[in-house]
């Protein structure tokens, strides 16, 4: 059953599902904005200082937003039995998985990227940094979504998987965040920011190649009970 469950079918369905709960579409975005605004509240309103840490803070919050919204990537499919149906469908499940991850990115990574200049403004980021930051976020959040999906697959059968997911995935995020925030920082310092961006791109390519496969086998594993 579930015969033509390819990439597009899952992409379309997940977008439909997210769209049904209107409140959910905006959630990662608002989390992103709110969490980032907390930083000046808790640290200092000093623009000079904020400027230096702005790209980093934006990246950390983007990372957390992606991570948190990924938690439910497979959860509802697991609970209602859809995941079991997917696993016994004749196709390879790599394409559906990729479809789901794409839907996730379209509803978190992409809006985050688009809204990041606003945060840049709030955190006094120099305007030169906007474009590199957005480019970095666009590519980097792709990696983040894929890695988060791997974590979500590993913890799908655990009732309280959210935090555990964080624990597992965060160390893997390290390179992404370093190169990601470097993209913006380089450009502010007048260095060539295409270097770190290229590395981010390479990491994305690697993640696209490996993660869906890993996720598929993990899903088979963790859903057996």
């Amino acid at each position, binding site marked *: 059953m579930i015969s033509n469950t390819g990439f597009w079918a899952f992409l379309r369905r997940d977008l439909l599902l997210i769209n049904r709960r209107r409140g959910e579409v905006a959630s990662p975005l608002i989390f992103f904005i709110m969490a980032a605004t907390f930083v000046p509240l808790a640290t200092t309103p000093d623009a000079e200082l904020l400027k230096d840490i702005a790209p980093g803070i934006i990246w950390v919050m983007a990372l957390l937003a992606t991570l948190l919204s990924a938690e439910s990537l497979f959860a509802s499919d697991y609970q209602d039995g859809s995941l079991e149906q997917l696993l016994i469908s004749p196709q390879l499940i790599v394409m559906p998985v990729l479809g789901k991850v794409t839907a996730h990115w379209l509803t978190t990574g992409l809006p985050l990227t688009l809204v990041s200049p606003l945060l840049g403004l709030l955190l006094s980021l120099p305007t030169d940094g906007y474009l590199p930051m957005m480019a970095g976020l666009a590519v980097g959040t792709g990696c983040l979504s894929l890695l988060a999906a791997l974590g979500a697959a590993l913890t799908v059968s655990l009732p309280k998987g959210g935090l555990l997911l964080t624990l597992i995935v965060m160390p893997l995020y390290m390179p992404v965040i370093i190169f990601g925030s*470097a993209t913006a920082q380089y450009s502010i310092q007048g260095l060539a920011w295409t270097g770190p961006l290229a590395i981010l791109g390479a990491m994305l390519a690697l993640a696209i190649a490996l993660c869906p496969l890993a996720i598929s086998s993990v899903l088979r594993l963790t859903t057996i009970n």
Partner: protein
Amino acid sequence: MNWNWFYRMGSPRWFYESTSRWLPWLAALTFVLLAGGLVWGLAFAPQDAKQGNSFRIIYLHVPASFLALAGYFLMATAGAIGLIWKMKLSYMVMKCAAPLGAVLTFLALFTGAVWGKPTWGSYWVWDARVTSMLILLFLYLGVLALQYAFDSKDVGNKASAILALVGTVNIPIIYKSVDWWFTLHQPATIRFTEAPSMHPDMFQPLLVMILGFYCFYAVALILSVRVEILARERKTSWVRERVKQATQNTLGAGL
């Protein structure tokens, strides 16, 4: 090629019985190496010209760092063998290597931090190697947490094996990126990445300590795997037999 030996090695019983034979010897060797190395290093090796006596912590720090890293690869390899050949023993090794590795990583961090105070003036510095060691600790903790989060041992084993493997892909990337990050931001305040051209009198006890730590790691791992084997196989006849013998022996000794 005959693969029998390979599968026999996968048998917990074989492992238990063969290690019983040579474990005492290994333990004795470990003791000699560690005790000898410590006494040599702490009491007889010459003082460092710049750092004075504080450098002596190197005899714990470097071996612990070595084994923390090597232990991760051992754990991941054991996980991979378990996934590919479905060997119970291999999962047990992985499971026991995780806490051991985490403890060693912690020891490396701790000794490093203690050493950092006199040399760098602060316990912590966001240096490349130091940071990647911290991430290594997180990776270990992730594997451990995932392992115990599953109610089913089988699923827990496989899931954490996969995580350990993914981590192995990442360790070089993490290391490279942190290294790169460090050189970007901060002018080299203190670098300890270049191997210090050490005086042989200091270096020889260090070698002994490293060897001793390797042996210690092996002994600790084997011991905890043996406990794990007894727990998992407690229903089998050979374990029951052994338990019966052991209780009789102690009873006999008590009487």
